[in-house]
Structure formats: structure tokens, C-alpha cells
């Protein structure tokens, strides 16, 4: 992943060698910063979840018989009887081997559990992100172009109303209206219970289940893209180069698409990349309302135990995703905006 923009940058800047070296330093510095953040997260992940109230062994044996020997055996099995520094060394050694430990609750490797949940999460939040970015940018640029019009007020108003509505409430209403009342979509899950035969029917089945949770997420988040796009385009509106473009005889549509929007797009790139990082974190609320088997929900449930290995694992995976996307945003911004490169 990280190679794509790096090579693009290198190819772009082939001619002036001095600037190329500057780019290399910049790339290295950005990557180094990212690595340092990940290192801190690894340490934090260990300490953070050991401060949580609750004894995992107590929670695991709640509501069922457990004698002291069994509790001691469980403690030994999970290494909870060892001193904290020793546990930390074990944790680092396991991590170096790519082993995130074994979940207390599911008695299975954390890596396996997280990978199983990653697909559904990326599908839901990824598709919601794409739809909301496209919708937000499109509506935002239109609204700014016809600033103050009925369209502007309606688009901005609706977006802000949806933005401020509680997700849980909106999701349940969508469920009541579109799933139960109009009988258009299922009430929960990612597939029909038990699954469907055949590849195409299975994809359609997932798509059918995806509509409501995806739309709920889009409704709640697209406002931020709309607002950022609208305000940055408004800043460009009075720029001289637009007058020049119009003077050339370009149609309004082309002026907007070719000249104004590309320049106004830069601030939105940062916010999009930040959200791409958070895609992995999913959306606990939407996942809860629509029973979507995602990663956000898994984390939330793990907190209640606390299932320390699972929490450590999700924290590391989620944080690495955010850090990676931040690094990409830094690099991508430089690629997109010559002014950043020049400075």
C-alpha cells in the first residue's frame, strides 16, 4: 500500500534532483513518525487494558460453578499469575511472531477472530464511506456554486439535521419503516440465516442486507464532506482564475468541474483519508442496530469481560490502520498540491 504514492511521487519529481532528495527525506520522516506511533500503541495497548476494572477470570466463571483450583488453573493458562513485566515480555515476543494471543471468551486465536470480522466491517464502512464522500462532495459543490439558493439551504439543512440525529434512533426508525413497514429489507445480519447457495445469489443477499445499515451510516456522516466541500469551494468562488475561465467562454459547469472543484478538493482529501483509517473501526452503533457482525461490535463486547488479548489485538489493528492512512494522507497531499511540495 505505502509504495503506491511513494513511487508516484518519485516519478513525478524525476527532473529536479534536489527536490527529489527533499521528497525522500520527507517520505522517510513521515514513515518514521508512523512507525513511532505504532510502537507507542503497542506499549499503550498492553498497559491500557490492564487498568480496566474487572478480573477476566472472575467474569469468565460468573454464573457457573468454579472452584479455587480451577480459577488458579485458568489464571496460569492465560499467564495472569505472572508478574506484569514478564507478561509484557511475553506479549512483545508473541507480537513479533504476529501472534496476538488467544481470546479469553472465544478460546480461539485473536488474529483469526479479527480477520473474520474485518471483511464485514470494511464492506459496511467502506461502502458507506464511498457513498457519503461521493454524495457529500457532489452536493457540497453544487450547494456552494448556487450559494444561498433553495437547493443550497435544503441540502445543507437536511445534511445537518441528519448529522445531529442520534444514529441509534435513526437506524431503528429506518428498520421500522423500510424493513418492517414496507417489507423491503431484512431486519438484521449480513446474510440470510444459514446463508444462500451460489456466488451471485450470495453477493445479492449480502447487498440486500447492506442497504439499510449503509444508508444509515451515510445519512449520519455525509454532512461533514458536504460542509467541508461547500466551505472550501466558497473560498475559491471569487478567485481571479475563475473569471479568466469564464472570460475564455467556458460553460459554468466546466468552470466548476475543471477549475474550482479541483482546487477546493484539497482540504477534503485530508478528512477523507482520516476517515478511511477509521473505516476499520467500524461503527458500533450501526452494527448494533442492524446486527452487523463487525469489528466495532466485537471490541465493545470484549470491553465488558475484559477480554484483554482481543482488546489488545483490535486496538493494534485499528490504530495501525489509522496511522497508515495518516501517513498516506500526508504523502497524498504532497502529491496533489504542488504548493506543499514547494515549501
Amino acid at each position: 500500500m505505502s509504495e503506491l504514492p511513494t513511487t508516484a511521487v518519485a516519478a513525478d519529481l524525476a527532473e529536479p534532483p534536489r527536490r527529489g532528495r527533499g521528497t525522500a527525506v520527507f517520505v522517510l520522516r513521515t514513515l518514521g513518525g508512523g512507525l513511532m506511533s505504532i510502537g507507542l500503541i503497542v506499549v499503550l495497548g498492553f498497559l491500557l487494558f490492564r487498568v480496566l476494572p474487572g478480573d477476566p477470570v472472575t467474569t469468565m466463571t460468573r454464573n457457573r460453578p468454579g472452584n479455587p483450583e480451577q480459577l488458579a488453573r485458568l489464571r496460569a493458562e492465560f499467564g495472569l499469575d505472572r508478574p506484569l513485566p514478564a507478561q509484557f515480555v511475553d506479549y512483545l515476543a508473541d507480537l513479533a511472531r504476529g501472534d496476538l494471543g488467544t481470546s479469553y471468551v472465544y478460546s480461539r486465536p485473536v488474529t483469526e477472530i479479527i480477520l473474520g470480522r474485518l471483511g464485514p466491517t470494511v464492506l459496511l464502512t467502506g461502502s458507506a464511506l464511498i457513498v457519503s464522500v461521493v454524495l457529500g462532495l457532489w452536493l457540497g459543490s453544487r450547494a456552494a456554486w448556487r450559494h444561498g439558493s433553495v437547493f443550497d439551504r435544503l441540502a445543507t439543512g437536511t445534511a445537518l439535521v441528519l448529522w445531529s440525529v442520534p444514529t441509534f434512533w435513526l437506524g431503528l426508525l429506518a428498520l421500522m419503516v423500510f424493513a418492517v413497514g414496507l417489507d423491503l429489507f431484512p431486519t438484521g445480519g449480513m446474510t440470510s440465516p444459514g446463508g444462500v447457495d451460489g456466488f451471485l445469489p450470495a453477493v445479492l443477499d449480502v447487498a440486500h442486507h447492506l442497504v439499510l445499515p449503509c444508508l444509515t451510516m451515510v445519512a449520519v456522516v455525509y454532512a461533514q464532506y458536504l460542509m467541508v466541500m461547500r466551505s472550501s469551494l466558497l473560498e475559491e468562488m471569487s478567485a481571479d482564475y475563475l473569471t479568466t475561465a469564464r472570460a475564455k467562454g467556458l460553460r459554468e459547469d466546466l468552470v466548476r468541474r475543471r477549475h474550482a472543484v479541483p482546487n477546493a478538493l484539497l482540504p477534503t482529501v485530508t478528512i477523507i483519508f482520516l476517515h478511511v483509517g477509521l473505516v476499520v473501526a467500524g461503527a458500533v452503533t450501526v452494527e448494533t442496530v442492524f446486527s452487523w457482525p463487525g469489528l466495532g461490535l466485537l471490541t465493545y463486547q470484549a470491553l465488558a469481560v475484559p477480554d484483554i488479548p482481543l482488546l489488545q489485538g483490535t486496538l493494534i489493528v485499528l490504530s495501525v490502520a489509522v496511522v497508515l492512512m495518516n501517513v498516506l494522507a500526508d504523502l497524498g497531499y504532497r502529491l496533489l498540491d504542488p504548493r506543499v511540495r514547494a515549501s
Partner: protein
Amino acid sequence: MRWVSFRTWAGRAAAALLAAALAAGGAGVAQAAPAPGGTTLRVAITQDIDSLNPFVAVFLSSTQVMRLTYENLTMVGPDNAVQPGLAESWEASPDGLTWTFRIRDAQWSDGTPITARDVAFTYTQIMANPAAQDANGSAVANFASVTAVDDRTAQITTKRPQASLLATDVPIVPEHVWTSRVGQMGTATGAEQLPVVGSGPYVITGYQEGQSVTLSANDRFWRGRPHVDTLQFVRYENADAAVQGLLKGDVDLVRDLTPAQFDSLDGNAAVGRNEGRNRRYTELLLNWSNPSGVDGKPFGDGHPALRDVRVRQALHHAVDAAAVVDRVKQGYSEPGHGIIPPVYPKWTFTPSDAQRRDHDPEKAKALLDEAGYRPGPDGVRVGPDGRPLTLRLIAGNQVPTNPQLLEFLAGWLKEVGVGVTPQIMSSNQIDDATVAGTFDIAVSGWSVNPDPDATLEQQTCAVNGTSRADSGYCNPAYDQLYAEQQAALDENQRRDIVQRMQSMLYDDVHAIVLTHDAMLEAYRADRFTGFVLQPEDGGVITGQTGYWGYYGATPVAADQTAADSGGGAGGVVAGVLAAVVVLGGGAFLVTRNRRRSQDERE
């Protein structure tokens, strides 16, 4: 130009992301077993499945599936009395140490005969293999050996006599399948090979992690094939969505509803409601810092006043269990006295008129006066040592009605001059506080098995300081009786001892047992009927000790279903109403917003 290339790149990336994600989702589906034909009963579960491995699974949702898949040696029937399972008959030796079971002539779902060797294998694994002890290790703690005398005869030898032996709730697994998994007993998911080979009414034929478990009727089930062909447990993350699923028909049975959700389904012709008398109790723990059984020293930092039995009696007189039933639990509950719920009439305890403590604030005040706690200047009583009688009152946030309960309790206690600092916390914090004894009064509760042994054990000295401990009670006389009932193989004798034990707890006010709450369930009565309740008089369909609720279910004939479409129409009306509310509300907010922005501009 550069912008265009970026856009293409972004577009391709997005398409690739979507395709990959869809493929990932699709791949997950492709692995799942196809839903077989015939009738399908779908049950919404709001708890995750932790495992389908009977040696590991402990969540209620999972043990339900295990009970459907693997038959026990003996089990309890809808009447909560012991019934034959894989064992068709049994007898105990005169010393009560050796139990001989006659294994019935039945087959596993793959056609292999079920023999005593399967029984010996299962129990021996749990006794000897640490990886197999997670779920049921403590059930065999008193077992010395389990052997197969011949194919049809299994023998269990215990270290001490054990009256509760026939209630041992351990699924028996097929040796020919599990013998190759001995090394992975602690880590196997239990669904590696589908269909799962089992002996119960249903066997697992599909598992979508975090989403659903599909079970198909077992043709070789010894009691006879169940009437419903397919049983599916479908994961819902919240009960509100599950209720919507029930209205729409995505699921046929939902459980653990709140009173509000339950009431909202009233009058819907398609939906049957069941207010099931459940096997749980809700109690107030009083921290009287008893010497713990662990080291013989008082533990925790409970208010010293709670060590005086008169203060504990006064607290009991101050609270109004009937009001808790009516106003906190909306009537879906019954006042309790002992730790064994009335669903077990054989063991439950009702205090005599002489010992019974009813809601009586005047009596509470008199008892507190007598104990030396005189009203202070601010209404809070002050003890002989000058310390005000102000108690910490804690409750977990996992029960939605707890905040309300705390308000009522605080009111009742203040009325008799007891100061209260209420606090809601996470269930983990409650566990920590009750095990360590860092509280004064705590709202707590437990589920009770058909055999009372485990619940009675929770009040013994030996469990104090562990997560099993309930009230921190420690009384050698009680422990003596506990040992006696364990060895009492004559049921009448045992019943008498268990009554005396509960009476002792009641007189000592080990805790205040408040209520036995109902389990609220709802199902599509237009599609299914015949759910067997446990207990038979007003019990529960789901969460039973056994499989009776699901096993009894029968589909409603098709012609009746067609005539009974009232529920769907009701759903549409509700949906349209909701749509009107949403659109109306949205329009209002938009116009308001627009008006405001116009104002701002002018």
C-alpha cells in the same frame, strides 16, 4: 490533469475495495451450509455464541445449542424432575458411592451406536484433560472414576456420596469423533466438521460466526424426530431490532424482552406472548464482613452496623418487595423469600408466619432504636460509636431497571433513618466489589439449577473470596447441613435439610431476597405452537435446563397461517405511521433550519 489521474486512481481503488469486500462477504456465505427445506423455526438470540465446543461453551446461548445437540446421561424434564437421557435406568450402591447406568440402545446422528464407552470417554476427558475442563470441570470434581463395564453399562464412582449426581448437566460426546481432537479440546470451535455428530433432537449443520447457527432435525433421536425440520439461532445485537424481526417474520421467537417491549406486542393476533416464571432471583447483598472461609479474618470494609442482625432485619423490614414487583418490574415478577425460586416447588422455601419479615417501616425503626442507632440531627441515625448509619448502595448497569430500583430503595431506607449513597456501576465493578467486600448493600442475583446443590454451596465458608461467593455468609452449622444434604440420597430427608438451611439463612438475614423475575418471551403464534414450558405451569420456552421448549414446537397448518395475517397488516400500519412521523419531523426541522438561516442572513 493531475486531478483527473487522481480521480481515476481513487475510483479504481474504491472499486477494488468494494469488490474485495463483497468477495470476502460472499466467501463467508459460500462456506455456510444451505438452508434445508421444510419448516424452519428461527430464534433470535441477543447473546453471542462463545463456542460450539461442549467442553468450552459457557454462554447461555451456546449451552442451549449444546443441549439440543448432545444428550446427557440423565436430565431434568419439563417438571424439573430427573428423567432418563442416554441412560434408560440407573441404580446406586448401598454406600452411595457407585452408580451404575444402563445405556439405551440408540445411535449417534451418523448411525454409530451410542455405547457406555462414549460416556466413559467424555467424563474421563473432563476429569483428566485440563483443556476439557473449562465448561464442566467442577461438575465432576467429586468423581473418582467413570468406566464402561460393557457396551451397555457405565459406572460412576464418587469420592463422597453425591445426592445431586443425577442432575449432572454434562453433554456426552461421541468418542469416535472426539478421540482425534483430544489435543484441541480447549481450542476446537466444535463446528470444524459439519454436520456435527450428536445425539440430541437437532444436530448443527451450519455455523456463520457472529451471525447464525443452523440445526437440522436428527432422524435418529431416540425420543423421535422433532416436528420442525430446521432450527436456526439468529444473532440480533439488540432486543428492539429482534422485536421488529418478529413483527416482520424474520424470526419466530424472541426472548429476554423488557416489560415495555413485551407490552407493545399485546393485542397482536399473530404474536403469542409468554410471561415465563424463571429460575432466577434478585437480592440485596448486605456486607457484614463475616470472617471469610479463606483465612478466617473479616474481609472488606462493610459498615460495622451490618454485623448486627437487628440492623439487617430492620433493612429487610424497610424495603417493600411488593412495590418492587409492581413499580420497578411492571408486575412481571413475584416477591421472593429464599434463594431457591418457586419454580422448584420441591426445594423452594416459604418462611413461617412467625419468622416472616414484611414491609413494616415502624418495625424497622424500632429495631434500629433497639440496636442503638438513634436519629441524628439531619435525619440519619447515628450509632453508639458516633458513626452515622450511611450505607453505600451499588447496582450493576446490565439490568435496565436497576437505576429505578436504587431510587426506590434509597427512599425506603431514608424513611427509617438510614442514609444511602447510591451508585450504578459496570457489572465487572460489581463483581470486584462483592468479591472483595468493598460495599455495604449491593443488588445481585443468580440463576438456580434444578438441583439446589450449587446454589446452597454459594453460601458456604469455602467459596468466600471467590467469584462463586454470594453473600459472604459463613456459618459452620450451615456448612455442616450442606455436607449432610450432599450425602442424603433419600430425597425426603434431603428436602428437609435444604429447608432447614434456607430457614437458617432467612433468620440470619444473610441477604435480602427481593424478587423472582419473569422471563418475557414472544413468538409467532400464527406459525408455531406446542412449545413445552419448563416448569409446565407458566414456565419458560427458552433458557431451559433441557431442550423441551424447542423439541415440542410444531408448525401451524398452512391454511391457518393464510387466514391469520393480522400481524403483517399491523406491521404495515405501524411502519406507515413511523414514516409519517419521520418525514413530518424531518420537514419541520428543515423548515425551522431554513427559517433560522434566513433570519441570520437578514
